[in-house]
């Protein structure tokens, strides 16, 4: 029975992936992609990869969906781009893409059956940091420098988005202003849901030490709550020139980098933690990252400043 369930899941994933690529309407493609994310989440759970499932749920279907929906909406208002590439070029692209897909498939099938990522070593070294979640051990301790660079990439992406602002709008509030809705379901929803979201974000960060969860997953939920309050018109985004906002964005990467560098003095190597306080330090760094990543993700979805006149 479970085999049929898995086959059905795989077929749905393939069908939705095909739909997301094949349709020429951005909106249909986005909806297919969001459901594809949900199907993948279930597939990861079936495979026992709960950390991946949580990340897919948080990033793949939630926030990316909102981002793509906004992009699809914007593309429709833009003048349509009618130049289709010539038939030989399209054939060449199809062959190249199929080649990449087949090559990736061949590589996955050719993987050795031994544990290539030293998962056993990561799991057995849990006492070194006081965290019981091997994934989080790898992210925050064994490969901490990769995680820092990952946060820097988010920061660079935000700089890229902001650099699209027209000169006249630079320094103003980003995105458009959503008018405050009259008292109604949306206002109620945007008041009731964020406290729950903040609680769940903190919960994911906290359980991330010992079970699937973590700062990034919590941050996506926090970002969604920030965006919800903005969509309901209850609050506007702060101006991009705001110093407090910029400090908030830099806080997480700076804390991580600072703690990593302090490791040279305190523990004898960059990104090493003093063993007695490793868990406490990691949680503090993760909390700083939760706030910064949430702010950065929300600002990435909101977009560049584009209002010509100052907001009232």
């Amino acid at each position, binding site marked *: 029975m479970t085999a049929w369930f898995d086959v059905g899941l795989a077929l749905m994933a393939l069908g939705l992936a095909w739909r997301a690529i094949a349709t020429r309407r951005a909106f249909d493609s986005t909806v297919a992609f969001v459901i594809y994310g949900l199907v993948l989440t279930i597939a990861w759970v079936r495979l026992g990869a709960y950390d991946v499932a949580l990340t897919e749920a948080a990033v793949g279907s939630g926030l990316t969906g909102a981002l793509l929906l906004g992009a699809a909406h914007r593309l429709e208002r833009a003048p349509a781009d009618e130049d289709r590439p010539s038939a030989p070029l399209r054939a060449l692209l199809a062959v190249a893409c199929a080649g990449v897909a087949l090559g990736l498939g061949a590589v996955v099938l050719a993987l050795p059956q031994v544990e290539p990522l030293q998962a056993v070593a990561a799991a057995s070294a849990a006492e070194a940091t006081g965290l019981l979640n091997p994934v989080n051990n790898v992210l925050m301790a064994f490969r901490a420098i990769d995680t820092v660079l990952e946060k820097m990439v988010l920061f660079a992406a935000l700089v890229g988005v902001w650099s699209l602002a027209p000169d006249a709008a630079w320094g103003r509030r980003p995105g458009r202003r959503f008018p405050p809705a009259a008292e109604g379901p949306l206002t109620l929803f945007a008041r009731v849901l964020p406290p729950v979201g903040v609680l769940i974000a903190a919960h994911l960060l906290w359980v991330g030490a010992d079970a699937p969860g973590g700062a990034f997953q919590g941050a996506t939920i926090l970002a969604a709550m920030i965006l919800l309050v903005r*969509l309901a018109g209850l609050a506007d985004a702060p101006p991009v020139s705001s110093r407090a906002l910029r400090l908030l964005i830099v806080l997480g990467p700076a804390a991580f980098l600072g703690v990593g560098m302090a490791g040279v003095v305190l523990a004898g190597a960059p990104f090493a933690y003093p063993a007695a306080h490793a868990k406490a330090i990691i949680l503090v760094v993760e909390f700083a990252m939760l706030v910064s990543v949430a702010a950065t993700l929300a600002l990435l979805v909101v977009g560049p400043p584009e209002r010509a006149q100052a907001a009232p």
Partner: protein
Amino acid sequence: MAALMIWAAVAIAAIVAVGLVRVLCGPTRADSMMAAQLIGTGGIAVLLLIGVAAGAPAVVDVALALALLSAFAGVGFVLGGARR
């Protein structure tokens, strides 16, 4: 008990998957989005059932994250995507 939960998950998945028809050829965008929300709700139910069947409490957190974010996606659609 676990087998019963897997059966229930399969039944919910099969019923909700019918909604894909509306996603693929729903006459309006609202139809697509409502079907996507239905599949989201069903997907959360499937996750909870197979999670409990597999004895993995972490799946409850996955379902919780999905529930919060799919509600948000609906609002994003109404205010961002549907308005012409």
